[in-house]
């Protein structure tokens, strides 16, 4: 690559010498010869800049009678420089026209991307676009419908409870994990008075929620007042991947008010009871 660039530089140098030599020809010879083609060169400094920053364009020409610099500059002297402030990457073209024809040269100014830190430090107020305003307007309406839906949801669940699980017969069973327990709970099966009422298989997300201290309402149903038998079966995996299973038998008393039964589960490696029943 180095050799290649040196070769180009050498060729350029020879061409320049040839041009200079041309210029030194005797007038008579020149008059006899066809008009010499013009030549022109253009450079930009710096070649890259953030949008709107000044860039200097410098040009020089030979055998030219008029020079035009585009875009946005127009006719200029045969040699000189000017400042431009391009807002996007621009290729400037200088066109030299003379008796021997015309020649072009270009220089590319590349706009460096990304917001500059100084350019973006205006206060945020007053910057909102119509899109943002529209988004926020809709956002407010969405917040309202969410509020309404929450109120409706509360009323719906109240209605459902009254119709389907009246307090006189309602029993709700909750599942929690003992604090810090590491077992992977796979499934819980519940029987009330020998009847299967729930068989729940846990997703990773649900297990995570239990581990963080969330409590799952696994079952809501109806039982008559008096004593009832509750059988609990849990399946899970230990940290090493071994399966384990535990069962528990409990009795709870249903009175006239709603009955809440809480089951706290723990793996066999913890010091906690595998299945503990708490009544609220």
């Amino acid at each position: 690559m180095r050799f290649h660039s040196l070769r180009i530089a050498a060729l350029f140098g020879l061409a320049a010498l040839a041009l200079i030599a041309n210029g030194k020809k005797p007038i008579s010879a020149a008059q006899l010869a066809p008009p010499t083609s013009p030549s022109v060169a253009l450079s930009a400094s710096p070649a890259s800049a953030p949008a709107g920053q000044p860039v200097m364009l410098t040009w020089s020409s030979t055998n030219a009678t008029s020079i035009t610099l585009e875009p946005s500059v127009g006719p200029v002297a045969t040699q000189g420089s000017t400042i431009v402030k391009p807002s996007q990457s621009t290729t400037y073209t200088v066109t030299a026209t003379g008796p021997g024809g015309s020649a072009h040269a270009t220089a590319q100014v590349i706009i460096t991307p990304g917001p500059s830190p100084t350019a973006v430090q205006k206060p945020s107020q007053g910057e909102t676009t119509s899109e943002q305003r529209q988004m926020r307007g809709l956002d407010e309406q969405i917040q309202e419908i969410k509020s309404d839906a929450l109120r409706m949801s509360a009323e719906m669940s109240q209605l459902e409870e009254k119709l389907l699980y009246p307090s006189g017969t309602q029993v709700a069973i909750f599942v929690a994990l003992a604090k810090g327990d590491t077992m992977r709970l796979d499934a819980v099966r519940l029987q009330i008075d020998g009847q299967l009422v729930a068989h729940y298989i846990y997703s990773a997300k649900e297990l995570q929620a239990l581990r963080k201290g969330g409590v799952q309402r696994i079952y809501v149903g109806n039982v008559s007042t008096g004593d009832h038998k509750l059988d609990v079966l849990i399946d899970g995996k230990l940290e090493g991947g071994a399966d384990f299973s535990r069962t528990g038998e409990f009795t709870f008393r249903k009175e006239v008010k709603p009955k809440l039964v809480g089951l706290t589960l723990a793996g066999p490696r913890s010091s906690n009871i595998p299945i503990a029943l708490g009544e609220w």
Partner: protein
Amino acid sequence: MQAIRQLIGLGLALALAARPAAGDGLRDLYFGEALYHAYQGQYFDALQRLDTELAQYHVVDEPELDSLHYHINNAEFSVGDFELDYRMHQRAGRAIKAVLEGAVDEAVRNEAAFRLARIHFQKDQLDDALQALARIKGKVPEEIRGDVEFLKANVYLATGQPSEAVKVLAQLKGNERLAGFVAYNLGIALLQDGRPQEAIEQLDKAGQLPASDPAGLAIRDKSNLVLGTILFELGNFERAKQSLDRVHLEGPFSNQALLRAGWADASAQQYDRALVPWNILVDREPTDAAVQEVILAVPHAYASLKLHGRAALLYGHALEVFSNQLERVDASISSIREGRFLNALIREESREDETWVIRLRNLPDAPETYYLMGLMASHDFQTALQNYLDLEDLRSRLTAWKTSLDAFDDIIRLRGQNYEPLLPEVDAQFQELDSQMRLRIEQRRHLAERLQAILTAPRPDYLATAEEQIAGERIARIENQLGDSEDPESLALRQRAAHLRGALRWRLETEYNERLTAAYVHLNELNAPVDALTRQYDAFVRTRQAATHSYVGYDVQIARLRERVGDGLQRVDMLIARQGHMIETVAINQLESRRERLVAQQTEARFGVADSYDRAARAQSGGEGH
């Protein structure tokens, strides 16, 4: 400001994550249930549960006996948190204001004020944020002390008071958790305060802080990127390059850093050095704006090195890339216009990280969402997308409620059909039994009263057996028949009768105490069956009432709910259409602006090809000519 806003976002996320929502020793199962939903991102369910619990708590006569009492502060804050997570800032603000104005201790009130300030800040309500912060007085909970000061500094920055922000941030330098964010913000505050040299030194420190977590690494990279850009603009290319080179090659700011590092070299006319970062960048994801810039910058560098042949080839390659990308952008715009973006949004199930929208590109027929990355960084667009999904969720809930209401109507109708023919007969039987029961209970009460009375005025005759009573009555009858006759036979009979009466009385008088005790025992023995009867009676009354309650009195409520659900569905449908249209418009605008840039780049590439071939040819012919 974009840079600062993104930073603030990170800082706030950190503060939110720091606070656990649940305390130890859960005492209220329903609060636990709300947390269970919240931990799974089901904020609607969490809110509904907790709203109900709090509403009940606030109407009970003795709230200190309610199990929620143990968690009440946590529950009030959690409602605010869930509302924020469910993008209900207005309600969250109201909930937190309620805590602030309630009778709570200083630490809780200060935490509420902090949370309120944070909401106002997020919603760009800066004056309100300042006001809320001004309410923080006295004891501030240790775990939020740093966050309060950090927020204060951010508000000062946003309200154009950088010198105040500098003072606050300088005091926060010792906070380990916020170290990277404080260091970066201090740099930005110094810059805004017109102290560029100090800003540069500060950002230089921020760019070299140790960091291990993704957030810490990101803020360190950001510090280096911003510092590199500032130094570049000041013309200090060498130092700019050093700073940009520190940006982690795999991080989110890596592409920008590589691009700018190359420009730092190129601006110092060191194009061969510029090609090192640029050649790394040029092989990355071609939809990235920095990669697209570098696709043009690389041939530019070769051209500057006068390697016009290579430049021409690379400009040709650039032309091809831009044409392909333009096709992808056009296809994406069409795809969005055809509604496929919104469909893909609903289909994608995993929305756990911030780049989930990018993954939509992998779904069939989905638009090229990589072009929306810039949009995704904006809080407003993220909220708009999430709101769209929330509306979809509400639509399915409302539809399900509509079905439930129909089912409730059925249940009520069937129960009515079942109970109505049965109840009159049941009621008639009950009335009969009821009157019998009342009679017996009245009799028992009467006996108890008599027993009580004879304790003070003994009446042995009250405790006579039925036989004795009959005997007594027969004696009286005989005495009555005998009359007052003086004949000897009558006298003898009267004596016998008197003797019998005496014997009877003797028995009643002498056995009185035993009989009284026995009567008490018997009366008490009655208690158990009477209690059982009363329980059965109450149970029957309850069941009878439940039978009525199971189908009577719902009509108005159900009709009203049905109307509200129907109205809600209409509003949701309308909002889904508007929200969807807005998202599509914003996304299309974004794609069109990228398209515009691609067209300009394509023109540059086209010109680059021609120019480079021209120069290469001229160089060649110049060489040959000589």
